């Protein structure tokens, strides 16, 4: 672990002031950051503890949206009555991830900003583009089982590990941030970024910016939704593939649907064309198959993770059936609905 200065911000303006500059990291729940610091993967010189900031509330907004404070823990979010009843997809996805202990400590803002679980990223004795730009990537052609099926270049192989974010993508949440240049709202699909030629940048936050809340639009898809996560054991493992579906049915037809995939790309994966094509269709096998084809178009495996493509296809079909039937996947009964 590197040596670092520890600062504690009393309020948001102070946090923004302290957060300006190079090699500064905000500390919230610390469930990922501290691990990474112990492994010398993250080496901030300054740690700004934001736990005293007033970002611990879940608030109903006048426009019908629900504001999740950045410092509300994952557990408090998942079990909040308003979230559980109006946005059960989000509760379900949160409860599919990590363990109760981690969810009790991890915060909503931190969940967004967790780093990839690529085994090379975590091992500082191996080169990794994400950890240390320009060193190259050895995951490409190495231990690849958990890595992405989107894109066929070394820059594209890490996955974003969050379950919560897959649901937030499907719910079209908005991330509110503040920073040296003021406040702004980032649509969820623009928050995480594809690696491109800067694989070390996971998201579109500008230097010094701090997540203050996640806003959930009024439409919560509480009737027809599911979060289906497939992994190497039945709990406490990152997704090989996960699918969040948020669907609104009107008179037996799909009025609206959002589908987000986890475990396949550097960010929760959505294809608006695939969703659009389902509009006004009756839910059914053919429609679902077309959607899965569209979602997985261009997916490429690298040998060890080839299985993720057919697995994702089947998972999409199952998840769409679960959502359409109003029988969402339970996160406690491990039988797949």
């Amino acid at each position, binding site marked *: 672990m590197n040596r670092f200065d520890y600062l504690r911000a009393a309020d948001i303006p102070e946090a923004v002031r302290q957060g300006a500059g190079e090699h500064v990291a905000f500390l919230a729940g610390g469930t990922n950051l501290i691990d990474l610091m112990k492994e010398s993967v993250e080496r901030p010189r300054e740690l700004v503890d934001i736990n005293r900031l007033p970002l611990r509330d879940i608030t109903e907004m006048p426009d019908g949206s629900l504001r999740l404070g950045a410092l509300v823990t994952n557990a408090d979010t998942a079990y909040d009555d308003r979230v559980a009843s109006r946005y059960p997809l989000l509760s379900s996805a949160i409860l599919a991830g990590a363990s109760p202990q981690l969810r009790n400590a991890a915060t909503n803002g931190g969940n967004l900003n967790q780093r990839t679980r690529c085994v090379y990223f975590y091992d500082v004795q191996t080169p990794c583009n994400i950890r240390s730009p320009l060193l190259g990537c050895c995951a490409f052609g190495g231990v690849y089982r958990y890595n992405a099926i989107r894109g066929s270049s070394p820059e594209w192989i890490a996955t974003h590990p969050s379950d919560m974010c897959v649901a937030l993508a499907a719910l079209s949440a908005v991330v509110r941030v503040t920073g040296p240049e003021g406040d702004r709202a980032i649509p969820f699909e623009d928050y995480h970024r594809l690696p491109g030629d800067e694989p070390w940048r996971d998201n579109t936050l500008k230097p010094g910016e701090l997540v203050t809340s996640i806003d959930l639009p009024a439409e919560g898809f509480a009737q027809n939704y599911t979060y289906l996560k497939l992994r190497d054991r039945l709990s406490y493992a990152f997704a090989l593939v996960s699918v969040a579906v948020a669907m609104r049915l009107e008179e037996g037809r799909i009025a609206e649907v959002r589908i987000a995939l986890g475990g396949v790309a550097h960010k929760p994966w959505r294809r608006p064309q695939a969703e659009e094509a389902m509009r006004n269709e009756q839910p059914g096998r053919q429609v679902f198959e077309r959607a899965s084809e569209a979602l997985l178009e261009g997916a490429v495996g690298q040998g060890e993770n080839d299985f993720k493509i057919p697995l994702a296809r089947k998972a999409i079909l199952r998840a769409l059936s679960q959502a359409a039937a109003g029988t969402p996947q339970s996160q406690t009964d491990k*039988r797949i609905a």
Partner: protein
Amino acid sequence: MDAFAKVGIGTPLPRVDGVDKVTGRARYAAEYALPDLLYGVAVPSRIAKGRITGIDDALARQVPGVVEVLTHENRPSEAWFNRSWKDELDIPGEPFKALHDEKILFAGQPVALVLAETFEAARYASTLVQVSYEEEAHNVDFQASLAEKFEPSKKRSSFQPPKNRGDAGAAFTRSEVKVDAEYHLATEHHNPMEMHATTVEWHGEGKITVYDKTQGSQGVQSFLASAFGFSKSDVRVVNAYVGGAFGSGLRPQWQVQVATLAAKHMKRSVRVVMTRQQMFTHAHRPECTMSIRLGADSSGKLNAVITDATTSTSRFEDNMEDIVIWGMMNYASPNAMGTYAIAPRDTYTSADMRAPGAATGMTLFEIAMDELAYAARVDPLELRMINYSEVDAMNGTPFTSKALREAYREGAARFGWERRSPEPRSMKEGRELIGWGMATGMWDAMFSKTSASAKLSANGHLEVACATSDIGTGTYTVMALVAADTLGLPPEQITARLGDSSLPTSPVEGGSWAAASSGAAVQLACQSVAKKLLKAADKVEGRPLGGASLDEVVFADGRITLKSDAGKSVGVIEAMRAAELAVIEEEETASSGISGLVSMARKSRNTHSAIFCEVRVDEELGQVRVTRIVNAVAAGRIINPKTARSQILGGVVMGIGMALHEETFADKKLGRWMNHNLAEYHVPAHADVEAIDVIFVDEHDPEVTPLGVKGVGEIGIVGTAAAVANAIYHATGKRIRSLPITIDRLME
């Protein structure tokens, strides 16, 4: 309550060390607080093979608090000859010597130890040590290493060579029903909860106390004395509590080497704790490939068993396991042949991990037996009965006992096996295919010469002691129960001590022999105390026992009572007072004796088990749930049904992991294990473990060991993964011969 009712052998007693463990009073190797302690953090090798060409520690030394960077260039002197580095297991080859020279033998090998006044300073400075290497070509890929496989001329001493019988090749050729397939088990790492750790307390003048995570304090004592030039009497090793080991603590691991070197160099106390990542730089279960050919007649009766296996070892030691013998011993085939080789790769040496050899070889063999059952269209359980052998079919010797038939019957009855529909894919509920599979388990029932002492004080308190270890298995409780049984004292009045090299002699704890061996030694020592106590009782006024002999009395409820007249008794404290004794202290050694040695030559000694498993498979998505396991175990006498059951439960859970989860992935280019943490190296989570039913079958066997105890630490894992794999076949019709059965393998 019966007048003679007592807590003793057979009483389900909660762990006597349980409260100490849950309250934190139990101290583990890394938890001994010492004044002026130095903290050591190891710098791991980046490369898998080659040599160190330079170490630049200048930056590390500038970190405040850092006092030394120990490397092969500045370490204190140590033994030169390989024989001085041999441990109790005596693996042929050149034992690994940490910080010995510039050679790199495996990735993660410690190349420097940063010593600092605080752990934080040592850890930070360890990241600043710059090491340059000259790399050599390496191979960590097991499949590639098979090109170099060989049968070592010098065998590991515990190795049991397969004994061939008949003409298996010819018999196989003419068999009506055949199975001929290749099976595989992935590399697994032990991953006990507690990381390997050592705290060396420096007393001055070359005297040290070493708190070490090990399964054998006296083995480590001898090793440290011989490798690092200490007088054996100046080295005391303590392992009072061990947070699991599974075999990873059978040999001294590198942390005890570097911690002791550092203490000697600095003349100060030193602590070194491995990180979870570093736990992947030493012991691991070898990867195994096994070809199995079974030939049978149309009824399923075996004519031929041909097994050929290779397991992985390192480039510097020839570790061997007994892989191919289990099927040859367990089944009555007139023709059987086994061959075995090892293949070297550039990793640390593979090591014993819970039921080494059997957990791999019997499991893979039992998958092949399941294939034979379908090929011959015989129920899998019936197939085992058809080929049941009353004797050890490989050695031709009878067993001291073998209640496997009863285990099959009781296990099948509890499971409801007779309701099984024989065809694969024939049982379904909702979307899930249901599969029922079974397998057989077999392990050795071993006994090792062990000493123990018993000290009875005037206040009726008894202390029993033995240098054996309790790696979470329940040895403390077993010792207390045997003592309670022998002297009729309540467990609250008994203290069991173990895990200290200064206590009476014991071998390293392993192989499931500790309960049988230390239990027998405790019993002997307590019997000697009983003799003296009976003499003392004779001093009680009025001689209520009338000079009765040991056979004529019962020790119970803290009293000695005449068998013939329950009204006549003497209290233990009363007897001590009458004889004016402060203590009675005896030490005894339990050994096989001549009759035991004769018995060992003439009879085979094994535990047996029958495992039945139900899985539910969502075939489309490759998800397997293990919903029910019944494991019926024939293990002789059970000293403590409560902790024994826990051992079987733990073995079964580990078997589920072997079947579905555990696999260490290597990067072949880099030559290193990559999923070296518990997030990516998967063992079963709670959600993966549902109903487990443990049955101990009655098995009276006074011959196997002095107490009639066979040991239960390992049998629970043997065959369990096969029962899971066979259940998956029954559910899906997919035969997967490579463990673990992960989603991708099930989807293929």
